[in-house]
């Protein structure tokens, strides 16, 4: 758990004051509420709320967009077949709040866990909800290989440029020069350009939005859920105590305003140019960058095995087995492998 920073305390105080000052109408029995619940109640574990995220965090918006996408695809992809897998970090807590089968695994390892789930039951729709440190830094190798394989999972990445849960250290997406709790003199390293990396690996669906682009984001998540193979949606999100405060975005609102000012929607952008150095005035290029479906891992696996005739060979071998045969030792190459 992160300890409250001054910025957080202030924000909490402000929020508390707002609640104190709320007009009493809500409690008046004369005034009927439009609804007893929240529209997303059936998709959230109410008994897990309130969540642990800080005021002005972008994760609530990312979560809401995910829930909306789930609702949209529900007629064809039932919620009981949707699985959410996460690793460690603030984003990793999303798995605990969605009312789906959910797995909160170890740091960086959500992708291989999700890979196993999908292999164990290919009918599942498996989504990894993850942060930048989890996916790209400690878990970078798994990301690279699952993307290369075009393995049948969705990856929804919340990039807030920092390790929020541990209190704002730099990671693989932190802009060069940024101040963090472990780069007090500025970050020496360059950040990763995630869409370009995904393109290089042949990912069939790649999109990026900020938490300001609520509708576009929900549509892209829906599109990702419908696309076979590996999909990646990068969600740029504010983290006021972990990243913004030390780097000229004092509050989440300021960062959202900056998103509004510098975002450029350009689905045709050359992805080599969409890295996020986050210097003042640098654009954040957003859009549905890539939508080029190609055979997924599991589609190709089935095709490969069909072409190789392994099922027929196995059936023949079983039919001819007497049950008392003597096999020649380590005989892999001697068998009638097609």
């Amino acid at each position, binding site marked *: 758990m992160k300890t409250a920073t001054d910025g957080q305390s202030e924000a909490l105080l402000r929020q508390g004051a707002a609640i104190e000052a709320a007009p009493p109408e809500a409690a008046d029995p004369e005034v009927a509420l439009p609804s007893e619940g929240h529209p997303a109640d059936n998709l959230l574990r109410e008994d897990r709320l309130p969540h642990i995220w800080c005021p002005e965090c972008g994760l609530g918006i990312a979560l809401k967009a995910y829930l909306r996408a789930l609702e949209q695809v529900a007629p064809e992809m039932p919620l009981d077949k949707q699985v959410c897998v996460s690793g460690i970090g603030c984003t990793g807590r999303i798995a*605990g709040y969605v009312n789906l089968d959910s797995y909160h695994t170890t740091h960086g390892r959500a992708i*291989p*866990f999700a890979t*196993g789930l999908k292999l*164990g039951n290919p009918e599942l729709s498996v989504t990894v909800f993850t942060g930048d440190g989890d996916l790209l830094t400690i878990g970078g190798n798994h990301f690279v290989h699952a993307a290369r394989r075009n393995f049948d999972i969705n990856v929804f990445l919340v990039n807030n440029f920092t390790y929020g849960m541990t209190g704002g250290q730099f990671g693989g997406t932190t802009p060069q020069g940024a101040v963090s709790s472990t780069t007090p003199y500025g970050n020496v390293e360059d950040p990763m350009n995630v869409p370009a990396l995904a393109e290089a690996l042949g990912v069939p669906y790649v999109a990026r939005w900020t938490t300001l682009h609520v509708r576009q984001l929900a549509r892209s998540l829906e599109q990702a859920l419908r696309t076979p193979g590996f999909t990646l949606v990068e969600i740029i999100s504010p983290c006021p105590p972990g990243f913004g405060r030390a780097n000229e975005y004092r509050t989440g609102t300021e960062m959202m305003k900056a998103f509004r000012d510098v975002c450029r929607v350009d689905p045709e952008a050359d992805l080599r140019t969409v890295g996020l150095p986050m210097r003042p005035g640098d654009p954040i290029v957003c859009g549905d960058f890539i939508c080029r479906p190609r055979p997924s891992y599991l589609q190709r696996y089935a095709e490969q095995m069909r072409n190789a005739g392994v099922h027929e060979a196995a*059936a023949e071998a079983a039919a001819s*087995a007497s*049950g008392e045969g003597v096999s020649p030792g380590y005989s892999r190459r001697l068998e009638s492998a097609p």
Partner: protein
Amino acid sequence: MRASSDRRRVRSGDHFMIGDVACAEAALAAGCQVFAGYPITPATEIAEHMSHRLPMVGGYYMQMEDELASMNAILGASCAGVRAMTATSGPGFSLMAENLGLGMMMEVPCVVVDIMRGGPSTGMPTLTSQGDVMQSRWGSHGDYEPVVYAPASVQEMFDLTIRCFNTADRYRVPTILLGDQMLGHMTGHLRIPPADEIPWVERPTRPPPEDPVPPPSSGNGAPPMAHAGEGHRLHFTGLTHDERGYPAIDAAGSRQLLDRIVGKIRDHHSEIVEVEDYRLDGAEIAVVAFGSNSRSAREAVRRARADGIPVGMLRLVTLWPFAEEAIAELSRQVRWILVPEINYGQIVHPVREYAECPVSLLPHAGGALHHPDDIVSAIRRRWLHEDRH
């Protein structure tokens, strides 16, 4: 879920086979549907054989990018409701340690095969060792109770792999088959029984979501498993959690969880622990050995007996949970216990902890088994020394 009645999976009959392949055939016979692994000597033959055979039975061989991924992939597959296995050797086993702990915490049945080789580090990839005994017990952080089987023959590479799957499902726990290079690469006789004689334990599963949830106290301490896609919408986490899977990060929550996941194994020692006696009748000296090295120990006992020395062997078939009672009982019968192992002293420590007689270690740096003569010499020295006094 039972797949072992499938003749494509069970190659019943007599075979002359290497241990690694026997292990893979056992996994197939046990219904293993997903194998995720990474090539490593001397366990690679298991992966190779699975890549050949699993697609034939509609399963998946998945070669992951490393052993961290392999371990997680089998946990995921098991959570989706199928039997899953990985196989590795020391360096890979080290990488699996963190997520073996995740499997313990989430209570995910699966099988991890470690074909030990000389260490530390890269060590001796093609030569044997028993250096991972304590790692198999304590490799991941925190408190948990692993179940570890130590085969001693090609036949046991098969039989105990089946046992690993069944114990894993019975107690909802990852189980470990601790073989070594000598066993993995040894060719020997294997008899695979008819499909309907392959032992089978059904994994206890949670009743359908519309039915009432069974109370946590029912069963053997391992709650029935809810699989993904069945409508339970359950949460699994590596955090300390309550019975709903929700984080319960305080002293009371930790105690409740750990009492149960440690207790479900400790309370069933008598059902899990297995040992084999060899010529312990009238023995005054005992050799305690396990795995491939027990083959040398057996020969040493035979030779020492021929010389008139009353010696026998207790072979540990399960290393963990430890055979506390068997060792205590043995130590009340014999005057001295000798522990030959291919390391600088690992299983000798719990033997000392539970024995009431003196215990000596006969270490070996690895790369080979103990020569039976070395074990006989140690026995004879002790016997003559005692007789003189």
